[in-house]
């Protein structure tokens, strides 16, 4: 595409919001050779491509620290190329991909394969997350150092919990040698055993086996003690329970290197959505009660939750068109990430700057990756969006392969107009 090859791009007249620099003003953004050259009043240089951003918001390309791109092994659910398309359409320019592939990403060769596939697709910066334990089995530590050399930016057995306290302790201790972040899927498998939705009034009425919030809370409590014991960097994936949010807040207050992320579905919906047994509302951890949802909103407002991540989990139709308990866990979220996060601004939970920080520089900092900023000299990963444009989520029009959204038919506000990856336009609204 011709316009993709323009070496100089000017994004003109938008509201530029760069949380990394606490910058929020109407400005132009000059991009030369994939790098941000100037932010301010810029006259278009000769031959430059101009993107008119009048009335639009210009922000760093979003950083989603928690996605599943399913490749290798589950290409029938999604591929790295397909996931990349969904990311670009959602204004997400950097993703951290979880290792629960087949084979699991517990080996530098798998890491290399993923990076190669992502480069070939060329739509998103993909940062693999390596496994904490070999085969995600929770027994023996994976080769964290070698994986990090190969390109892994953090470690997690996501999809599974590291249940053995001794193994978790060693993982946190060992990871210190590499400064690596340990991301836990916090779920006591004994407490959640057999459950397929949040335990509460709705699970009782629906007759579905429940997963109590304590399933998450006891692991977070334990892990925080281990973080204190070991001095490791600990991060709770997709936090869903009020008690876990409180525990993370207390740990941070104590000065521990503890953090967590929240997914838009957890701060938008509650377990009441499961009434009707639609498997598109089945995820892990499950949609929780209104109390938990409010705790997440408060955690975001207080700055105890510093990252918003999708847990983008694509599935083929067959694994969702079954009885609820037999359905696969997970929902896609990349294309609804921005509008649902902007609801936080509209509801007065956070300012635009703070919300975008949770979507850009904060996760970038947690992962230790470049990106999430519009600073001069930074790679020109940029999203241009209309914060108010309303649209209805239509599963058929989502990008990538999977259609398992839990927001089908819902009217959302906030639409990505352009996504730029190192100055190249990788998504343009309507195309």
């Amino acid at each position: 595409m011709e316009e993709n090859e323009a070496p100089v791009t000017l994004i003109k007249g938008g509201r530029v919001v760069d949380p990394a620099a606490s910058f929020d003003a109407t400005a132009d953004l000059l991009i030369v050779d994939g790098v941000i050259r100037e932010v301010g009043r810029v006259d278009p240089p000769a031959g430059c491509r101009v993107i008119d951003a009048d009335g639009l918001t210009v922000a760093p390309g979003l950083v989603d620290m928690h996605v599943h791109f399913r490749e290798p092994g589950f290409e029938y659910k999604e591929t790295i190329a397909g996931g990349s398309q969904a990311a670009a359409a959602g204004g997400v320019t950097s993703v951290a991909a979880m290792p629960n592939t087949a084979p699991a990403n517990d080996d530098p060769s798998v890491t290399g394969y993923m990076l190669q596939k992502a480069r070939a697709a060329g739509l998103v910066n993909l940062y693999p997350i390596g496994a904490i334990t070999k085969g995600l089995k929770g027994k023996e530590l994976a080769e964290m150092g070698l994986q990090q050399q190969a390109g892994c930016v953090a470690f997690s057995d996501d999809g599974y919990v590291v249940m053995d306290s001794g193994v978790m302790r060693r993982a946190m201790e060992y990871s210190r040698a590499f400064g690596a972040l340990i991301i836990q899927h916090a779920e006591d498998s004994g407490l959640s055993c057999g459950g397929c939705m949040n335990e509460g009034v709705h699970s009782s009425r629906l007759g579905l086996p429940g997963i109590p919030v304590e399933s998450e809370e006891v692991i977070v409590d334990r892990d925080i003690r281990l973080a204190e014991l070991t001095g490791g960097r600990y991060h709770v994936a997709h936090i869903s329970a009020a008690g876990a949010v409180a525990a993370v807040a207390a740990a941070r207050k104590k000065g521990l290197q503890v953090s967590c992320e929240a997914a838009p579905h957890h701060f938008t919906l509650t377990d009441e959505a499961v009434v009707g047994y639609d498997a598109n509302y089945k995820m892990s951890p499950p949609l929780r009660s209104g109390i938990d949802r409010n705790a997440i909103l408060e955690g975001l407002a207080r700055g105890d939750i510093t990252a918003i991540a999708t847990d983008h989990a694509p599935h083929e139709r067959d694994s969702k068109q079954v009885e609820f308990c037999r359905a696969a866990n997970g929902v896609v979220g990349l294309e609804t990430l921005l509008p649902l996060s902007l609801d936080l601004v509209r509801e007065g939970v956070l300012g635009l700057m703070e919300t975008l920080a949770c979507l850009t520089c904060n996760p970038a900092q947690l992962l230790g990756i470049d990106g999430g900023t519009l600073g001069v000299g930074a790679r020109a990963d940029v999203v241009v969006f209309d914060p108010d444009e309303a649209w209805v989520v239509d599963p058929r029009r989502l990008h990538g392969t999977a259609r398992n959204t839990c927001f089908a038919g819902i009217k959302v506000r906030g639409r990505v107009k352009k996504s730029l990856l190192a100055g190249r336009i990788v998504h343009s609204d309507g195309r």
Partner: protein
Amino acid sequence: MISGHSTWNRKHLLGMEGLSRDEISTLLETAASIREINRREIKKVPTLRGRTVINLFYENSTRTRTSFELAGKRMSADVINVSVATSSVAKGETLYDTMANLEAMNPDVVVVRHPQSGANEFLAQHLDTAIVNAGDGRHEHPTQALLDILTIDDNLPRLGRDNFEGMEVAICGDSLHSRVARSNAIALKTLGAKVRFVGPPTLMPTRAEEAFGVKVYHDMDEGLDGVQVVMMLRLQRERMSGGFFPSIREYFEFWGLSRSRLAKAAPEAIVMHPGPMNRGVEIASDVADDPDRAVILEQVANGLAVRMAILYRLCAGRRKD
């Protein structure tokens, strides 16, 4: 007799949740009037001639399947039984595909028993045939609740009552895994009865008070105190992964229905059980077989009438375009 306006416009019977008093009353009146057929010498009427009913059973249940089969046949419907062990389900076919294939043969009603909660709801959302829930997981078993209510209704005179308003009913045992408990609690509350769940804390649905509007008792003597209806539940050993209670003997000691324990209930109280019974586990044989107290076989007889009424209402209430 429960009275109300005659109302039935539903395409499916998926559960007692959401059914109004009038709808329940309509089904019971229909059942009561149909009951007479089952006492004739020739127990067959042409009402559903040319109609097709498929019993799709993913769980073994001789009694419910037989009851539905007989219900259809006594009204001259063509009844087909499909059970999981002999079907393509064993070859890996999904519930959706099995049902879509059956639907392609254009049945009037499909009766579905399934081990997963919500399976009937799932089918009703994706397919067009009228569905009767014959039990889904631990969710609902509406025909059981209807036959239980018809049985209580029959016994109102001996309980010295005119209606269900304020009647105390104890549902005892494993209500956590019980669709019978859920459907009955919902329906009995709709009719104005007061419902108690009695059983060990490990077999109690989470926040049952709030979810079902019942009172929860863990002490059997307190739970039975003064009730007029004692509804025992079967201990569903096949639904348990273990560890809900230490042993059968301990279970019977604390939550089994013995004659002495039954004495805590009102003197005229009736004893119900959805069957099949585990004698000596949740109920003592002398209670189960006591003709003055147990109405268990009346329940079975009413089950047939209730299922005839359902099939009739779903077929009569629905025109095929």
